[in-house]
């Protein structure tokens, strides 16, 4: 990589941004050194925190002119080191673009800036009886721009879809700083569906500066059934049986014994501590529909041998039952100095097999692992517990994680369902894709970013451009 003239860069950015929007000194840059996966840290040359889209555009133009790498950042809750800064580049924080521009109740849309938090959209829509569907557990903090970049999911995705299903249009800045808009007010737009391509592209193809999302009417009623099972297998079968009964629950989540213990300790939700697996099944819709489906799911769970069952009687009880699930990550965090969250997605029929294998690997690596996951979607979140103070344990946790991802691919699944590849899963990309597919990704990357300066070294392995390759930390070089 050509060495970058930091002085020149600083001078040029100072001409664009007010002083309080540039962070130059190392100590003040620390909060930006990593995302939600602190195993990977790096300081950038500069942190830029523009307040307007015009400023974002000027920063991009400037970086393009000077051939400086740019890494976009939303709220930094990502779990794949996607927003980790580039040591030779600018970290472009979008958190100050945090205005909700418009809520249109008749068209059921919200037009927002990229730094708006996921939950704030539903908050603003609530006055109109509407909400935004995808609800990642990090929704208080994570930004809609980050959600778009990762194609974020949540516990309600089986019924309401992922981020990609809930977008109507977006404004984009290219790496050169050129502006364009994708999508439209209707459901079809001319030419290629660049919005689909941009969603989940991890900030590698452009910078999203505005998003219009679809809103949904808030259901009349939502109730959750909690069921305990004596084995993971029985719970896994129960998930398939609900689907086979023709019911698509609003959410269908599973936890194993260790996760039940951690979550209940944390949230006091009254989870069955003696169960080997727990299912949370939410049903929403009209009063009549929910009543009908609750009865149907109860009978399915009984037939599948549920050892205990509880149905939320009111909103407070529903919130309580979910609280354990939604705080499962921090709850597990309290059981161990550090945890490492994996994200493989597998066919539902493979759930018990894969969980048994994970238990075996846990023995092998001598590291505890709690499992919390989106059972309806087959999206696993094994939480590997370790101590980052012990370098040898970090290495073991990483090997354990890599084994889980490869196992997910081996049973017909993928290495990441919603958290993205980032820097973290780059080494596993070749286990999911062949060389020709990886090459095709690379061609698409260069179509949007010929000089490879947008979030370089993330998302897709760059096979032929070794310059890029060398920018990766040593342990991610594979040949």
């Amino acid at each position, binding site marked *: 990589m050509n060495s970058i003239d930091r002085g020149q860069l600083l001078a040029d950015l100072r001409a664009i941004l007010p002083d309080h929007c540039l962070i130059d000194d190392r100590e003040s840059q620390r909060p930006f050194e990593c995302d939600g996966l602190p195993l990977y840290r790096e300081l950038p040359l500069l942190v830029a925190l523009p307040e307007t889209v015009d400023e974002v555009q000027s920063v991009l133009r400037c970086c393009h002119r000077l051939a400086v790498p740019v890494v976009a950042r939303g709220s930094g809750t990502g779990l794949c080191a996607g927003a980790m800064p580039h040591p030779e580049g600018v970290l472009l924080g979008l958190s100050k673009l945090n205005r909700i521009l418009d809520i249109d109740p008749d068209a059921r849309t919200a037009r927002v800036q990229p730094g708006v938090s996921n939950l704030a959209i539903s908050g603003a829509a609530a006055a109109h009886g509407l909400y935004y569907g995808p609800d990642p557990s990090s929704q208080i903090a994570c930004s809609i721009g980050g959600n778009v970049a990762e194609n974020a999911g949540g516990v309600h995705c089986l019924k309401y879809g992922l981020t990609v299903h809930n977008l109507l249009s977006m404004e984009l800045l290219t790496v050169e700083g050129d502006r364009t808009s994708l999508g439209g007010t209707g*459901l079809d737009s001319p030419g290629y569906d660049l919005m689909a391509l941009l969603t989940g592209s991890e900030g590698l193809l452009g910078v999203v500066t505005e998003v219009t999302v679809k809103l949904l009417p808030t259901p009349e009623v939502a109730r959750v059934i909690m069921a305990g099972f004596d084995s993971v297998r029985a719970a896994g079968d129960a998930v398939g049986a609900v689907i086979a009964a023709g019911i698509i629950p609003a959410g269908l989540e599973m936890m194993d014994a260790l996760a039940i213990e951690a979550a209940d300790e944390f949230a006091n939700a009254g989870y069955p501590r003696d169960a080997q697996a727990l299912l949370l099944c939410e049903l929403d819709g009209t009063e009549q529909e929910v009543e009908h489906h609750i009865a149907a799911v109860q009978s399915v769970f009984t037939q599948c041998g549920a050892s205990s069952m509880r149905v939320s009687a009111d909103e407070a009880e529903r919130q309580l039952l979910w609280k354990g699930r939604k705080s499962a990550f921090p709850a597990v965090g309290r059981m161990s100095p550090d945890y490492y969250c994996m994200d493989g997605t597998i066919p539902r029929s493979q759930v018990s097999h894969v969980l048994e294998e994970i238990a075996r690997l846990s023995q092998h690596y001598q590291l505890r692992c709690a499992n919390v996951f989106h059972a309806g979607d087959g999206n696993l979140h094994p939480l590997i517990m370790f101590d980052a103070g012990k370098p040898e344990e970090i290495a073991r946790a990483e090997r354990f994680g890599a084994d889980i991802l490869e196992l997910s691919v081996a049973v017909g699944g993928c290495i990441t369902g919603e958290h993205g590849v980032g820097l973290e899963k780059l080494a596993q990309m070749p286990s999911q894709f062949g060389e020709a597919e990886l090459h095709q990704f690379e061609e698409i990357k260069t179509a949007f970013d010929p000089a490879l300066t947008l979030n370089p070294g993330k998302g897709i392995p760059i096979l032929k451009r070794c310059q890029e390759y060398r920018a990766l930390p040593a342990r991610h070089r594979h040949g």
Partner: protein
Amino acid sequence: MADALQALVEQVAGARRAGQTLRIRGGDSKVHMIGRDCHADRDLKLAGYHGVSDYQPRELVLSARAGTRISDLQLLLAERGQTLPFDPPAFAGSATLGGTLACNINGPGRPWLGSVRDAVLGVQLINGEGELLEFGGKVMKNVAGYDISRLQAGALGTLGAITEVHLKVLPLPEYSVTLAYDCSAEAALQQMAEKARQPKPLNGACWLDGRLYLRLAGAQQAVQHTAGIWGGEQVETPLWEQLRDLTHPFFDGEQPLWRLATNIHTPAEKAGAQCIDWGGSQRWLRSLPGTIPAGSHLALFAGGDRQSEVRGELDPVQQRLQLRLKQSMDPAGMLNPGRLYSWM
């Protein structure tokens, strides 16, 4: 079937070597719609490459080869109480799965049930280099690499010849009712907005010939209860199938058929035949509309001059990105030349 696939790959690779262009053909149900007329040196025929390769009702996942007929898929799914949620046209049995994805063509429930673009989980395709590639997979969520599967929706085969598709399927609704109301187009738009904001099992809203039709589908009690509140006349009507398959008399005749992708705020046309579908998001018109509101997209869906551009202009930035994207998958421009835009 492995041999048939190999033969397809060989045809694309052979054409690439020979510098020839290819016209990709499925069931020929949409040759004269959606895209421009396409002229190429040779045909690449996908209709013979058909069959369901995997169907797991409990996983809600179906995989089928591109030439598989939509009508065959719907029959198979119905046996297990499931359906293609995007309700694509079968065009009298001729429509294929590959063509359906390439055209991103969807039924009247789209705003509520999604599109084939939304349902696709993975694809296998042959790119313009004659390489057989697989993206996505058979699982509900997959964010590794770029979403090249969804990118095929609406690309009209210009980025690759789709050979196999993995889809999310859904249970058939238990019960359905259509309510009809006599009203003006303006009143219908207002009703559509009002009804769609309510958390009720609405999954179709169309205005045609002075009548508003609302379709409710889901659990029987919920549908009946809502129908009781919403009033109107409960009708048995083939309307939804006719809208889906474009067999309603509205679509007859030689005049051009325009489609405006827009939202509920766009006023109804003052003159000329129109059909308002998708709860106001899709306007079928038999003449050019007076104005096109910002953010709306007009396309010449069928008929008219199909040598000209049939869809809206792109801004220069997007045109550049789209052209580069095309070149990244089909550098020689040999797949369905000119079908999407004259310059592509």
